């Protein structure tokens, strides 16, 4: 059996890769995909903990709550992707570029 902390460590590594992606890349779509990677790593941590809390012969509500939360996080991620990509398309229509360095109209 695989210890729970291995899953949490993998989740931390994926999260760090997501953070590095947001900071390094200039393409708005790759930045967005890195945000999805971060959300996915948090989901992995939830499910790993949900499994760790399940002891005994009855399904514990505390354990299943971890998986319920993953369900909600996926819903929120889907809604966020829809609106975020619409934003990117709208920005592209006016600036013809999805380089995040070009979106600095509000800069002082």
């Amino acid at each position, binding site marked *: *059996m*695989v*210890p*729970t*902390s*291995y*899953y949490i*460590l*993998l989740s*931390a590594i*994926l*999260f*760090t*890769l*997501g*953070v590095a992606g947001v*900071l390094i*890349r*200039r*393409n708005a*779509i*790759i930045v967005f*995909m*890195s945000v*999805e*990677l971060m959300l996915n790593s948090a*989901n*992995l941590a939830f*499910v*790993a903990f949900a*499994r*760790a809390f*399940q*002891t005994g*012969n009855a*399904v514990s*509500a505390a*354990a*299943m709550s971890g*998986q*319920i939360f993953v*369900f*909600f996080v*996926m*819903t*929120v*991620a*889907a*809604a966020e*992707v*829809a*609106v975020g*990509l*619409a*934003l*990117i*398309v*709208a920005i592209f229509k006016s600036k013809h570029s*999805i380089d995040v*360095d070009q979106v600095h109209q509000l800069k002082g």
Partner: protein
Amino acid sequence: MTLDLIIFLVLATIAVLAALAMLLSDNAIYSALFLIVNFAVVSVFYLMLNAPFIAMVQVTVYAGAIMVLFLFVIMLLGADKLRQPQTDIPWQQPLAILLGLVLLGVAAFAIVSRGSVSAPSPLSDQMISAFGSPFELGKLLFTTYLFPFEVTSFLLLVAMIGAIVLTKEEKAKLLPRRPTKS
């Protein structure tokens, strides 16, 4: 080295390499495909963690809907042809990598120093089919978590309306101009 551990290490390596390839790839479509590989591997992890319903939802929603949406937008905007432009600040990227490694070090220290190195207790046969099944999820989702469930339905409605409003052409450009009478 049990079989579980070997499978976990192999899949974890694939997941991390796919995420790295997503970050470093020049072509945005290759990045999206590597992210799909990452999501598929995480879905297998969910199966190993006795969460079959969440695993199928991951494949259907994340890899099947969200990434397809990404691919549509990438192909719509022609983003795969855009090269990585030069940044204004040359030291920004190495500093970002360094700080990312610091974040990973802090998280790894917190996990390794306190985390339990024991595996979760194995499930009895009756529990293997019960835990993580849609029945158990539904039992909780529609009783204790009913209010968040209804709120997410509103959230999806708002997201749909938002996506349509953001990409709609303005009316002034569509209607023909009325001639003014002097």
